[in-house]
Structures are given as structure tokens and as C-alpha cells.
């Protein structure tokens, strides 16, 4: 697969990741365009989350990773983030013993963080600024997690299963927020909920057995019943 540095924000070539010596991503190559939302799809356990964590250097990885043409594969995680990569982890990972305001303040890297933008997206959090993040509902914690990534002028967001375990109303709210965010920053999204993928994603990368097995337009993949069944192990009408 070729990576076009003029249109792609992220290039991943021959990425291999391991956790405690166990290979979790075999050999992944793909690129992410500088606009819109690109979904990473695949069955459970194929290495989607590990791919995101590998890009960010949170787990041991080898291979090439470029951000706007610059190599970031040799950098520690905090330096990659400082270069403009926001991260919304699976399971939110808010700091439970810190307040909402502290969780957000910790994420602010620039002198003028986009507080107004975040407050407008998640008004519920404004009222809960002094509440301990650990006492929030799952949906509210997800809002904190997404808000942390949106406070800075990032060049790319890595968002891992943002709707996992959330009530339908909150799923809509988080989806709306990501759609709004995608207008200002490209997003690489890992998501199991195909309805959400259909609504959000422009392109899709399908991982199977630790490798990229298909790339293309997200809706085209979801509309092709046979392909969806074969690649994702689910019926296409789920997202119809």
C-alpha cells in the first residue's frame, strides 16, 4: 500500500506489536487521510486496539509510523502526543480520584485550550467540573475521555471503541460529538458498533489475523453483506 504524504496524515508500514513478548499485531500497513474519519474494523482480538496503542508507543512496536511525513516510531508516547496525536482509550481511563476539571486540566497542552468548544459539546461536564471522575456514569466518563483529546489542536485523534457499553442515548451523544470533532481533526476510529461506523466513517481498514485484509469506503464494505460476513463475522443488515 502506498502512503501519500500530501494527503495522508498518518502512515503505518509493517507495524508489528507485542505485549510481554507475545505478538499481537503481525504486520500492518495502512494510511489515514488528513480529513474525515477512518474506521479500523475486524473481529474481536485481531489487534485493533493494539494497533492504536502501537502507533502511540504504549506497547512495544517495530515498523514505520509517520505523522504528516515525519517519523514518530522512535519517539516515546508523550512526544508523539505533543506532536499532535490525541488519544481516547478503550474503557475511558479517566483518573477516578481526580475531578472532572482536573482530568481536563491535565490534558491541556497549549496556552489557549479549546475549552469553549469542549464545553459546547459536553455541557453536562460543565456542571460536574468539581465531581470526582470516578463517580460519573460510564457515558459521562466517556465524555471526559473524548473532551481531553479535543482540548488541544491535534493533527490526528486515535479513538478506541468510544461507544462500548454505553446506553443508546449516550451513544448518539458521543457519535454526534465525534462527528463534530471530525470537522476540525481527522480521526482513526476503532469501533465495533457498525451503526456508529456507518454514520461516522468515510474510509475503513479491516484487520484480520494481525494484518490488513481489506481497505475501502466504509459504507461500501458495510453494504456488501458477503464481505461484512466474511471479514467481520456479522450480518450486513446490522448497519442497514
Amino acid at each position: 500500500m502506498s502512503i501519500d504524504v500530501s494527503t495522508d496524515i498518518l502512515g503505518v508500514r509493517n507495524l508489528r506489536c507485542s505485549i510481554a513478548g507475545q505478538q499481537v499485531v503481525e504486520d500492518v500497513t495502512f494510511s489515514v487521510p488528513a480529513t474525515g474519519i477512518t474506521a479500523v474494523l475486524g473481529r474481536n482480538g485481531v489487534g485493533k486496539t493494539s494497533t492504536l496503542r502501537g502507533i502511540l508507543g504504549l506497547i512495544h512496536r517495530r515498523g514505520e509510523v509517520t505523522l504528516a511525513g515525519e517519523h514518530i516510531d522512535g519517539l516515546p508516547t508523550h512526544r508523539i502526543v505533543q506532536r499532535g496525536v490525541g488519544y481516547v482509550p478503550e474503557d475511558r481511563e479517566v483518573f477516578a480520584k481526580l475531578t472532572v476539571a482536573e482530568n481536563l486540566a491535565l490534558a491541556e497542552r497549549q496556552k489557549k485550550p479549546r475549552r469553549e468548544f469542549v464545553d459546547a459539546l459536553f455541557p453536562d461536564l460543565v456542571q460536574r467540573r468539581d465531581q470526582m471522575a470516578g463517580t460519573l456514569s460510564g457515558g459521562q466518563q466517556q465524555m471526559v475521555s473524548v473532551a481531553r483529546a479535543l482540548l488541544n489542536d491535534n493533527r490526528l485523534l486515535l479513538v478506541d471503541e468510544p461507544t462500548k457499553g454505553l446506553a443508546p442515548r449516550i451513544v448518539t451523544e458521543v457519535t454526534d460529538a465525534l462527528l463534530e470533532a471530525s470537522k476540525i481533526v481527522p480521526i482513526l476510529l476503532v469501533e465495533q458498533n457498525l451503526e456508529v461506523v456507518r454514520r461516522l466513517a468515510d474510509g475503513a481498514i479491516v484487520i484480520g489475523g494481525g494484518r490488513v485484509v481489506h481497505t475501502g469506503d466504509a459504507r461500501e464494505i458495510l453494504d456488501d453483506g458477503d464481505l461484512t460476513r466474511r471479514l467481520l463475522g456479522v450480518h450486513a443488515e446490522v448497519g442497514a
Partner: protein
Amino acid sequence: MSMLVLTLITGVGLGALYFLVASGLSLIYGLMHVLNFAHGAFLTLSAFIGWLVANALGTASWGSFLLSIVVGALVGAAFATLTELVLIRPLYERHIEQVLVTVGLSFAAVALFEGIWGTDPINIAGPPWLKQTTEVLGARIPNTYWVLMIAAVLVLAALVLFLQKTRYGMIIRAGVENRSMVTALGIDVRRSFTLVFAIGGAAAGIGGVLAMHYTTFVSAHLGSTLLIFAFIVTVIGGLGSLTGAAIASVLVAVLQQFANSYLNGTGDFIVVILLALVLLVRPSGILGSKA
């Protein structure tokens, strides 16, 4: 009644000393997952240098006493910072090796201190008031205990203020919960490691100088003896919890004093039994988070 009051207050005073040592241990483990066996060496060196300063300026004066505490804190912080930068940082994420290097440093430090200051304890002196007692409800409380309590309260207040009101404090609190997520927010958490070592070293340094006045001598093994109880306190309080360390310090020391006074000097034995019970019933400690 006076015996009860004496035992209780001296227990709290001893707990204050334990807290001064344990606070740094707990913070270091909480953030870095390093059991720092070299913590006693920070304490011992601070005590020796503090003693040299006080001795040079005149042991009877309050000025030299206070200055020796400040110098002790600075020496502890400097020694701890150096340890983190030179020995711990190159072994980042290799926790077993990090623990082993602190064990090695603790042995080497004791040998070095014995080489410099000899193997025999050196008797020390301080302001005369420290050797006097203050009567409380009929009990005559040695004044050293009041100084220990004041120092521990001041250190606890300073640590709480630092952790709650500063950005670095916020980073440390967040790092204790989830270190990798702190780095995923673009923060170089290793800077906080050095800071936590320095803070822990400073607290141990203050503890070292005061421990010297508590025991009325300084020796190369001063830190090793206290470190055992500081570890016990840290485990019982919950590894990584400052409040837990404060509560456990007082709990352990009061229990120890009561057992020593009323159960034929079995204080140390009772403390070990308490540790075993806590590990069996609540392995995460009083306020520690479950692994």
C-alpha cells in the same frame, strides 16, 4: 492513667517518625512501582550530615538544630535525586532490576558510612529542651516526641498542599492511578519520578535528623532499622496512599508502644502479626487500591 497517656502520646510521636520515612516510600511506590530499599540510606546520610552541621554550629542552639533539619532535608533530596537519575532511570520499566539496585545501594551505603564514620554509634546532643519532659495529665512526655509530631504534621500538610494545589501534584496523583494514561496525555512522567524521589528523600532527611535526636545517637544502621517499620507502615496503609501511610504510621506505632508497655515488650512481634493479618484480610492495605 498517666501510663496510658504516656504510651498513647509516645506512640503517636513514634508514628510521626514512621510517617516521615514512609511518606516518601509510599509516594515512590505509588507512582513508580519501585520498592526503594535505599530509602534508609537517604535517612542515614542526612542524619550524619545534619549532625556535622549542628556540631559545627553548637549543638545547644535552636538555630543549629533547625538548620541541621533543613540541611538534612536538602541532603536527602539531593541523594534521592541522584539515585533516581543515575540508577533508577536507566532501568525504566524494569521493576525487579530497580528494586535490586536499591538493595545494592543500601548495602553499599551502610558500608561506606561505616568506612567514614566508623561502626560504633555516635552519641549526639541537641537543645537542652529536647532532653526535658512536658507533663500531660500526669504523664511526663519527652519533648522529642512533640518535635516529631510537629514535623510530621508540617510535612503532611506540605505534601497535601503540593499534591492538591500544584500541576505537578496533579500529575503525581494521576500517575499513581494510571501512569501510561498520563504519558498518553503528552506528559513526560519521568520528570515526576525525579520529583517524587526528591520529595521522598527530603522527608526521609528530616526524619533522619529527628530520628537521631529520638535515639540520641547516629550510626550507619540508623536508616536500616527504621526502614523495616516504614515498609510495614507503607504496606498496611496501602502502597501509594499518603493518607493510608499517615493512618498506618500512628496505628502501628501506638499498637507497638502499647504492646511494649502492657504485653512484656512484644511490640515488634505484634506489629508483624498486624502486618500478616492485613496481608491476609486486606492485601491492598487500609487505603490502597486493588491491583
